[in-house]
């Protein structure tokens, strides 16, 4: 029986980890569809940024209520996972509370802490659920969350409730079995663990016979660990990927001032050539300089975005803090920076699904531009950086908007007409209005 359960456990574990690894590999493959971008600079500063913002949750707590609750769930999640380690070792060796004899009193302290955290997580999750479903908070009620995104958010909350309840049930029944001295649970009169929370639910189980208790305890134990493994494999399809990706994402986030936009190298080359009086405009392009197909200017599809932007899309938690600060969205425009990130991820998954099916990318006749993100959204942006500032995990929706505007203007000449006039003025008069450059100093004498 013991051997059988060890084998079953090992099989489930290997399958779950294997499946998870396959998903992560696909995700990395998809991210690599984007253009390369060098973020290998300033390692120290990047590390510090990651510790502060991702690990230290410094931007989460700018909104105190949701920030505090999130910190509770985050700490609970990280610390309770130490317990998962023990469960895995127990499962693989057929032991029971294998860490206890080594850690002695500290073990009791650990279990004590886990229980308190489990309780706090339960409370926080309930509040989260209320905020999301009852309290009419605008960023959780918006159209872009209809359907899967909203369900996804709720599923995770239910998941947490179930997992925490199973953990506490497991502890409560285990405690009774330990005190009753049942074989396989008793440790020569010593009680392993300290149970400040599950102690309250002990009375629920006290009337049960030992055999029933063992079944309940085992069931809770198995469901708990299987639940965690299911959760692990659910991540890939969920906004909850952020629990892993927030760290690399913040590490790789832009360090330069928010107002600094990239200068496009391809354009610099062309402009330099145009301005160089010695350049021969009719010279054939240097064949050695051309490597493969020339990249399009700006972004029409996910292939034209860079890998950090695609990582951003997978990392987005759909919290909507960006959108709730966006001046365009606040005033009823179609643009929502959160939706920009969600649509980028949707398109990335759409492309990934084709590759999964066909073995390679085959044009599906769609693009990120138009099929997912409309020009109306793109032109509504004021480039104010409020979304970037608001994002708790270093996502830059504005950079995607800018790349797509560049595509519209440089590849399609598809700017709104008023902007074409403005740009014509800049080109001809050196100002966005039709004034003569020679009159630039007239104000001094007016």
């Amino acid at each position, binding site marked *: 029986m013991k051997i059988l359960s060890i084998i079953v456990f090992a099989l489930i574990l290997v399958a779950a980890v294997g499946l998870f690894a396959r998903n992560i590999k696909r995700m990395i493959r998809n991210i690599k569809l984007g253009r390369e971008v060098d973020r290998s600079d300033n390692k120290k500063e990047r590390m510090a940024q990651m510790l502060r913002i991702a690990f230290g949750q410094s931007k989460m707590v700018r909104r105190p209520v949701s920030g505090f609750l999130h910190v509770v769930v985050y700490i609970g999640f990280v610390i309770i996972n130490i317990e998962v380690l023990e469960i895995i070792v127990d499962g693989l060796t057929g032991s029971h509370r294998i860490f206890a004899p080594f850690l002695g009193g500290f073990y009791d302290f650990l279990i004590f802490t886990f229980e308190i955290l489990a309780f706090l997580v339960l409370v926080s999750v309930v509040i989260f659920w209320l905020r999301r479903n009852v309290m009419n908070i605008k960023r959780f009620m918006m159209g872009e969350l209809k359907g899967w995104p909203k369900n996804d958010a709720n599923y995770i909350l239910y998941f947490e409730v179930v997992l925490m309840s199973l953990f506490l049930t497991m502890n409560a029944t285990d405690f009774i079995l330990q005190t009753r001295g049942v074989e396989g649970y008793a440790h020569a009169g010593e009680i392993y663990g300290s149970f400040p929370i599950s102690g309250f639910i002990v009375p629920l189980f006290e009337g049960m016979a030992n055999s029933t208790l063992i079944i309940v305890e085992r069931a809770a134990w198995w469901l708990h660990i299987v639940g965690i493994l299911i959760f692990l494999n659910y991540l890939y399809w969920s906004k909850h990927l952020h629990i892993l990706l927030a760290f690399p994402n913040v590490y790789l986030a832009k360090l330069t001032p928010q107002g600094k936009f990239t200068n496009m190298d391809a354009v610099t080359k062309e402009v330099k050539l145009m301005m160089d009086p010695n350049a021969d405009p009719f010279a054939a392009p240097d064949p050695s300089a051309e490597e493969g197909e020339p990249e399009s200017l700006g972004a029409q599809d996910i292939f034209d975005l860079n890998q950090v932007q695609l990582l951003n899309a997978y990392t987005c938690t759909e919290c909507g803090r960006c959108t709730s600060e966006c001046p365009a969205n606040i005033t009823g425009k179609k643009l929502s920076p959160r939706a920009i990130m969600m649509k980028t991820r949707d398109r990335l998954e759409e492309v990934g699904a084709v590759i999964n099916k066909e073995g390679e990318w085959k044009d599906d006749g769609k693009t990120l531009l138009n099929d997912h993100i409309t020009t109306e959204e793109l032109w509504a942006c004021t480039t104010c*950086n409020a979304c970037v500032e608001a994002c708790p995990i270093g996502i830059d929706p504005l950079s995607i908007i800018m790349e797509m505007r*560049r595509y519209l203007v*440089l590849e399609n000449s598809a700017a*709104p007409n008023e902007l074409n006039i403005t740009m014509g003025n800049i080109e001809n008069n050196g*100002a966005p*209005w039709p004034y003569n450059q020679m009159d630039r100093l007239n*104000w001094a004498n007016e």
Partner: protein
Amino acid sequence: MSEALKVPTAAEFLAQGKQPEVLFWVGCSGSFDDRAKKITKAFVKLLNKAGVEFAVLGAEESCTGDPAKRAGNEFLFQMQAMMNIEVLNGYEIKKIVTACPHCFNTLKNEYPELGGNYEVVHHTQFLKSLIAESRLKIEGGKFKGKKITYHDPCYLGRANDEYEAPRELLEKLDAALLEMKRSKRNGLCCGAGGAQMFKEPEPGNKDINIERTEEALETGAEIIAAGCPFCNTMMTDGIKAAEKEGKVEVLDVAELIANAEDL
């Protein structure tokens, strides 16, 4: 106007074999927009008063290319940038001050990679340093106790992390500085950035400048202080829409200081 403004050009400095202490980048708005020209003049008065040896490029200045860049026209932006850099480098300019946060951001952050390396400061930062060096003094008298709220321009605040210089100047006026609901790094855009100034907004249920002006009015301020000619226009339009003209004024930080000095 008390005295004629002294506005020497970089070419005049060069002709005399001299170097200006700083180049004042006037910007398109500051050169051509009627409202913004007043800001330009107020700032020049302060520079004259402090005896700053500044120069302007005059007809040799051209748009930095900011609106083109944010509209997605990188090509036009870089053309503008390279032409301006040629002029600036020709005069061996080291330091630039500008009253426009968009010019400030572009010159400071986006020109270096294209060969334009200058120390670039916003006019509020420059005025702050003039005061710190005792070259300029502010008498607060005129604005004592007046309720002023300051609107953070996106390209000075969030974009470049400068929230304090303009506020420090306003505090020197002995005014009562009131903060809006959304301010500093959470400040709400006026709606002009990203080339929006030059086009009609997309369909929505409100204009951004109206939303922002309402926030400013909620503070009960009599003066909305701005640090950007575009914000100034947007907020002024917002005041008109709210029919608060004559009751609430939109003034640039430089204008407030020049007014306090009765310049």
